[in-house]
């Protein structure tokens, strides 16, 4: 049977449209590249389904599919032209570049798809945006062009990698790493981990790759394939699929039965943040993550002369015209110099008290400076800082808040219920309309607002009614419920779901109150910063001799609260979140929960059970003596570099074994007697008996299983008739196998050159495979445990190959039965 016919036969059941090849001695690649590309596509595209949830919606999917499919199709085309593997992957990379250009940078590309220097220039800002999105936002992110570009590039790269592993290197089992790489992202980022859909689709694709490569194994182009063994190949494919499916089923069942798997191994809702830790509060409300962190980080201390602990406000979100709350930049209005902010906090006739606070921001890193409201001067800052007269938020222009130690003087107006009740005038006309603007509001919010605040007369009463409603027993504080319920965030639909589920955390309470206030005609905004934190028990003397009480805040104190505008009084903070923060005097109502005024008790989310069922009233009270806080909170995102390091270490550790396996696989497909012999010598080297340079094949073979035997014994080993029991314990079968391998190699290396017997070749290869495995098991049976492990994990033959390559990277190696120790240079 000719090679062409064999390959056709093998390919027959796998797909239609057999192209027999251009004929002659060079059979075409046939359907194999296309089928393999299809399998890889199924795997990569399937696993990419898990990215839903990392991105909001499915808008990114077509781009991802087009990119993956295009790259693989280009590679398959190159393969069908029998291009070398390196060329195939170059073609794939070029296709990836073109596809990305035409999808995302068309106007910057030549003819709309050819990348030119301008394309690269335009790529920079996009990558910057993607980076900001990755660093700053939490999943699910709005799929903007930048992040989709990054995702497509990643998927394309994974497709190339997977195809290279499965086809070029013929390591289909390892091609799962590419799929795993896709699945790792949602597993890291998404609270519910990768999810069943993407996992199942990716796993199915992986099985498909395994099955297809098994199908084509031995029938690859240019090689005499499995002739009579077609049915065997089919059976193997079936077995492979069966084994894989069984393993998957066990995996899935196991995770269902064993607790701890259901929520994923990785911390939930984590940002995927490979470029360092921007641990500061993000204006885009990344609060939930900080709250859900098991351990606090970004420790920050402040010492104040105020009698009550302070809220530290970093940024104000006032723009709710889009889908989420976000800060209005107001870059044109911002004023430079925060040493003395020329802003009159107190209205005419209003009294207030001045507070001095010294803040050490520690490693809290954000462009926004956390300060108590309302700051009038900030001293001791490094860098250039600006402030916004409208919101009094302080922002670094070329710096951030990390490592700053600064003194804030702030003024708190004296507010009382009476004054607030009196402030019934409509807001001044020059107040930014932004504070009242709303996108289309779902009915449930309108009706809720109406039923809650409809009966109230003054803005103050309305505000109190809304706050009372949110702090009522109907609502529970939960950092987990929104994540589980899929309404984490601050959008309008999130608020609607929150009102139904009645469970959420500060972001939900604050944004709901702010929206309902706007519906009620009260200008509102959301302040983002930190709840008061805990006292450390220390005091810090100030410049003028006053003892400042020190408090400590960490990321678990991250908080958001609404500020409502009352004409004549200015912006007044409220606290609708049950169990968090402290309700100001003026806002205290007779609601069922009346949190104490002091900071640390009952307000600490650290003690809050994360389950949705945890009612605030049920929370244990922490005595204030719990302070001082733990001296060094563990860094929560340490697992990311650690995990990356572990992954890298794992890959490095697996590299020798993997390349050994690849080498063995390549050799097992090679015709002739030299490849099995090379494999045998490497095997012997792995088990600590490398051939000596001065050893002939049969002497080496004789020594290998008999230990130190004389040359005569060695000769006997090869000349011995098969089946003769070996004298020194080695199984006769292995002895005979060794003898056959040596004889075949002798024939190849020293015998008369003759034409390869094509038909018998496959049978011989099969025999060599059997012989090798017999010798291997004999060696393994003889070796001590440590050596067995080393032979698999750190095969000596691979290291000597690498060593030889390192010493002489350009030297062409000559095949030698003496293996690594007997390199002969020409």
């Amino acid at each position, binding site marked *: 049977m000719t090679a062409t016919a064999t390959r056709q036969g093998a390919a027959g059941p796998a797909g239609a449209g057999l192209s027999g090849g251009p004929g002659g001695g060079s059979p075409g690649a046939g359907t194999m590249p296309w089928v393999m590309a299809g399998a890889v596509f199924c795997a990569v595209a399937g696993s990419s389904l898990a990215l839903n949830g990392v991105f909001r919606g499915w808008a990114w999917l077509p781009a991802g599919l087009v990119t993956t499919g295009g790259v693989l199709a280009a590679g398959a085309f190159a393969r069908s032209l029998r291009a070398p593997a390196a060329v195939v992957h170059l073609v794939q990379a070029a296709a990836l570049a073109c596809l990305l250009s035409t999808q995302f940078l068309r106007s910057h590309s030549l003819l709309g798809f050819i990348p030119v220097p301008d394309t690269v220039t335009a790529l920079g800002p996009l990558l910057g945006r993607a980076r900001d999105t990755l660093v700053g936002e939490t999943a699910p992110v709005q799929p903007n062009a930048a992040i989709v570009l990054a995702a497509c590039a990643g998927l394309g790269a994974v497709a190339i990698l997977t195809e290279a592993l499965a086809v070029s290197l013929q390591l289909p089992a390892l091609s799962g790493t590419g799929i795993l790489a896709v699945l790792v992202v949602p597993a890291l980022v998404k609270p519910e981990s990768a999810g069943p859909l993407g996992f199942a689709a990716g796993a199915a694709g992986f099985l498909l790759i395994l099955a297809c490569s098994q199908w084509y194994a031995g029938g690859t182009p240019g090689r005499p394939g499995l002739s009579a063994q077609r049915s065997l190949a089919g059976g193997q494919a079936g077995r492979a699929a069966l084994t894989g499916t069984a393993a998957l089923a066990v995996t899935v069942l196991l995770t269902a039965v064993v607790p701890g798997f259901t929520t994923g191994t990785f911390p939930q809702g984590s940002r995927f943040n490979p470029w360092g830790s921007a641990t500061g509060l993000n204006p885009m409300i990344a609060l939930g993550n900080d709250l859900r962190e098991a351990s606090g980080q970004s420790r920050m201390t402040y010492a104040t002369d105020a009698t009550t602990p302070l809220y530290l406000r970093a940024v104000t979100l006032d723009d709710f015209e889009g889908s989420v709350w976000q800060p209005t930049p107001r870059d044109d209005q911002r004023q430079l110099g925060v040493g003395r902010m020329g802003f009159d906090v107190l209205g005419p006739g209003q009294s207030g008290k001045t507070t001095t606070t010294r803040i050490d921001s520690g490693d809290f890193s954000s462009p926004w400076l956390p300060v108590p409201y309302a700051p009038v001067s900030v001293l001791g800052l490094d860098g250039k800082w600006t402030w916004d007269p409208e919101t009094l938020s302080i922002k670094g222009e070329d710096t951030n808040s990390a490592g700053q130690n600064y003194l804030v003087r702030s003024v708190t107006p004296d507010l009382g219920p009476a004054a607030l009740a009196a402030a019934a005038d409509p807001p001044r006309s020059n107040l930014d309309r932004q504070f009242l603007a709303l996108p289309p509001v779902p009915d449930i919010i309108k009706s809720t607002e109406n039923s809650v605040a409809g009966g109230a007369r003054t803005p103050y009463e309305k505000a109190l009614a809304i706050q009372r409603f949110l702090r009522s027993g109907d609502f529970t504080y939960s950092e987990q419920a929104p994540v589980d319920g899929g309404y984490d965030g601050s959008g309008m639909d999130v608020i609607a779901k929150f009102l139904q589920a009645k469970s959420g955390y500060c972001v939900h309470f604050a944004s709901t109150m702010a929206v309902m206030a706007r519906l009620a005609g009260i200008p509102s905004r959301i302040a983002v910063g930190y709840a008061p934190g805990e006292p450390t028990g220390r005091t810090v003397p100030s410049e003028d001799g006053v003892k400042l009480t020190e408090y400590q805040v960490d990321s678990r104190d991250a908080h958001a609260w609404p500020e409502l505008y009352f004409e004549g009084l200015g912006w007044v903070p409220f606290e609708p979140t049950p169990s968090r923060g402290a309700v100001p005097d003026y806002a205290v109502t007779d609601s069922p929960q009346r949190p104490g005024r002091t900071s640390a008790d009952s307000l600490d989310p650290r003690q809050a059970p994360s389950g949705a069922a945890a009612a605030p009233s049920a929370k244990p009270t922490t005595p204030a003596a719990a302070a001082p806080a733990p001296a060094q909170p563990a860094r929560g995102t340490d697992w990311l570099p650690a995990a990356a390091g572990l992954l890298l270490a794992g890959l490095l550790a697996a590299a020798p074994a993997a390349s050994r396996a690849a080498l063995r696989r390549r050799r097992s497909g*090679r*015709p*002739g007697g*030299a*490849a099995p012999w*090379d494999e045998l010598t490497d095997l012997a080297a792995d088990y600590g008996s490398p051939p000596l*340079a*001065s*050893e*002939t*094949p*049969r*002497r080496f073979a004789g020594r290998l299983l008999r230990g130190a035997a004389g*040359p005569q014994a060695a*000769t006997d080993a090869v*000349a011995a008739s098969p089946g003769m029991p070996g004298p020194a314990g080695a199984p006769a079968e292995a002895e005979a196998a060794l003898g056959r391998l040596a004889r075949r*190699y*002798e*024939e*190849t*290396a*020293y*015998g*008369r*050159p003759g034409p*390869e017997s094509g038909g018998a070749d496959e049978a011989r290869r099969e025999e060599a495979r059997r012989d090798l495995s017999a010798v291997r098991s004999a060696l393994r049976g003889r070796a001590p445990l440590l050596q067995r492990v080393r032979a698999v994990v750190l095969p000596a033959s691979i290291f000597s190959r690498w060593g030889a390559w390192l010493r002489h990277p350009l030297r*062409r*190696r*000559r*095949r*030698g*039965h*003496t293996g690594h120790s*007997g390199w*002969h*240079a*020409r």
Partner: protein
Amino acid sequence: MDFQNRMTLPEELDEPAQPAPAARPAALTPQDFLRASERVLSVINTVIDGKPEAARLALTVLLGQGHLLVEDVPGVGKTMLAKSLARAIDCSVSRIQFTPDLLPSDVTGVSVYNQASRQFEFRPGAVFANIVIGDEINRASAKTQSALLECMEEHQVTVDGVSYPLSEPFMVVATQNPIEMEGTYPLPEAQRDRFMARISMGYPDAASEMEMLQTHQSVSPLEAVHPVVSAAEVAAMIGAVQGIFVSQAVKEYIVSLGRATREDPQVRLGASPRAMLQLLRAAKAGSALAGRDYVLPDDVMDVADPVLAHRLLLNRRAAGAGETPSSVLAAILARLPVAAGDGQRSFGGR
């Protein structure tokens, strides 16, 4: 071992690539070859107990068209080995007992004036036979020994300017005692070099000696020996040996082995190119006797000591340190990299 600056191979080292079947008479199949060689060996082994290796080597030398030097103490069967080999083959045998007064013409032959024809007639000497047994060769004078030189090397005798070819196959089996005695002349280096191999018989083991006493007490075992192969068959076997394939790798191994003997610091005189040639022939004969039609490095190693050891001269220091040519050669073999078979069937690079 680096072959970049390889020496030129002796001519015949490159030559045997010619296809074997052409050189091999059609009648002789590999099975015939093996059967014939088995017959010869079994005959020798009935005569000499417990020395199968010596018998095999003797046959190897015969098939490799070389000459054999058997060296050992008296009475261990040197002459018996030579005689039994000669008897096993149906061919002419002559025996020369070398003595100090032996003349060269006794070996080669002499021209005698024929009165009747009034012409000089050549009367062939003892060397005109297929197998010449030279007993105690080192007892003859250098002059007589050198008379053997031309015969051994060129298979012909030249007397009075006329060359007389010797019949094929032609083999000299010489014996000598290593113990220096009165009136012996050590073989000059040039003559030693002409012997393909030197073997030592060694004492037989106790069982073999017992066996010998049992069976050989009355009649000489030689009496019972009848030829088992014909001279023509031997010639065909020699032809078959000539057709044995030698790969480039094995040739390189032989060359590197020769160079190693010359470069070894303990050796004063290394192996000559002729020695390399004879090593190759012996290896070919050895592989043929093993039933193979190609030479392995193992075949070279197996014959290296008998072929090379008697040609090596150690320097004084090595000799004083108790080294022997055999031990030096063994050390060289143990460290010399075996050339890998590389080019005969190309499978592409790694």
